[in-house]
């Protein structure tokens, strides 16, 4: 089994999930509570990776982070490195690719929190931010957990975007799914079977744990 690729995929998925929680939660809050008319445009942009072929998304990301693009040039100036075909580039692409998987469940759970609770908190003199932290976020833990797990699982299995942006460099950008592809191309079916089975087992375990966990821990809400 290609332990190097598995380790890389795990690192990529954990980092992507962490970044998406940090960036996606405020974005989800904005989408859930903003009354701007053009909000739907942002929603559409966030949801794009759901319908866009990964190759198209990967192609645009590749153009956007290339050394001749403003972003790529800035990165080059700051770090002396290049984003395409690097772990950092792959991380950026993964974040964009999995954004809807974090934002949508989190925004849905924020929006599902009874507005009466939020207003009551405001009338008790508690600021908007503190109300979010003390009422909205705790009541949305399920949605936040779901978003995190979906992003993690989605990143573990991504293929097209990785191939476009990261290429196939062992230890740097060769993720599990690329590794399986390589093994099949090399007619090494035994290795491909092993790695695939590992990925299947991992995905199932993560999802099973999630669903089991949701049943137990927060069964008080929203059906009480």
């Amino acid at each position, binding site marked *: 089994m290609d332990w190097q690729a598995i380790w890389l995929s795990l690192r990529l998925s954990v980092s992507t999930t962490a970044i998406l929680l940090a960036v996606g939660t405020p974005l989800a809050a904005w989408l859930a509570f903003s009354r701007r008319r053009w909000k739907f445009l942002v929603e559409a942009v966030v949801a794009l990776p759901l319908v866009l072929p990964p190759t198209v998304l990967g192609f645009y990301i590749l153009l956007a982070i290339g050394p001749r693009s403003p972003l790529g040039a800035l990165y080059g100036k700051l770090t002396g490195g290049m984003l395409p075909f690097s772990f950092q580039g792959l991380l950026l692409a993964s974040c964009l690719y999995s954004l809807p998987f974090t934002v949508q469940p989190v925004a849905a759970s924020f929006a599902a929190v009874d507005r009466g609770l939020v*207003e*009551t908190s405001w*009338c008790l003199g508690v600021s908007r931010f503190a109300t979010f932290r003390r009422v909205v976020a705790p009541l949305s833990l399920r949605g936040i957990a779901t978003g995190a797990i979906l992003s993690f699982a989605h990143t573990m299995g991504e293929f097209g975007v990785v191939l476009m942006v990261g290429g196939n460099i062992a230890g740097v950008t060769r993720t599990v799914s690329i590794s399986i592809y390589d093994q099949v191309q090399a007619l090494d079916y035994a290795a491909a079977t092993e790695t695939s089975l590992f990925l299947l087992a991992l995905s199932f375990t993560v999802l099973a744990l999630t669903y089991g966990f949701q049943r137990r821990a927060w069964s008080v809400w929203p059906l009480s």
Partner: protein
Amino acid sequence: MAAELSCVCRTRLTSGFELDASLVLPLDGAPITVLFGPSGAGKTTLLRMLAGLDRPTEGAIAFRGDPWFDAARGICLRPQQRRAGFVAQDYALFPHLTVAANIAYAARPGRGREFLEAFGLSALAARHPRAISSGQRQRVALARALAAEPALLLLDEPLSALDAAARIRTREQLRQLLLSSGVPSIIVTHDRMEAVALGDWIAVMADGRIRQCGPVEDVFQRPADAQVAESVGVENVLPAHIVDRSAGLLTLATGGAHLQSVDSGETGPVVACIRAEDVALTRELSPASSIRNRLAGRVRSLTFEGPLARVALDCGFPLMAVITAQSAREMDLQPDDHVCAIVKTTAVHVAARPEGRK
């Protein structure tokens, strides 16, 4: 600064409902004001505007002289700045927090515990809101609002989530708790009995407007117009016009009969308001009596309600009388009987009749 809450607000909801409410309420002595009116009158909308949860289109709200809202000056204080505790109809307790944590939510350190004890909720401190009764939830919501030391307390139908028996029991408790808190409060209700039991002041609302505002007894005894009279439960609201005015008395014509009342200075089309319990019945016209209003009528129906009997009469116009069941039996009242209804002059209250109504 004036110790009062003044509110002149106009707003139009997307449903097309228009609210145009002007109101001045005293705050000295922390009185309880009941915002009273039928469903759909705009009571909750007004309460939300006072709390700062909805923004009126036009107008101004001032609390003890401080502007809370002023459309002309572009002032609109956030709910947090107004500190008007809002107790929602469903109490809106935080489901993820215990009773103790709910009460301590916005309280200064230590105050939460004080209120927990003062409201007799110590035994429930560790429970979650879903594990206590509606009555207990109401107390928790009230304790939580008061523990935050509000300047004003707004309660939206605070008793509607309770069953009938608990409602009556809780009513008096609620009034005592509010009075002892020293915080002026406004309670929304559509229940007449609740309004009487809870309020010092009453503001009667209908169709998005405040029809009358004053001490509860005043409004119930002297409703300003026909609509207020009906909504505060005056059984007989009779359209009438003034035919004579002399020696401080008015003579009113209504449905072919004449009624006498004390002159309150009303002019134009009026209504004569008579509470059913102020109508007495006799078998024959007794001429030697101090009572001026004697009306011949026919019994249309008779309904016994425990110790009382409700008698619907036809005196050329419908008139409702409430007498004791005992008298009704002694008089042997039957439908179609001819009787005489007598009403003291002072029991006839004259109120304005808005244009366009019968």
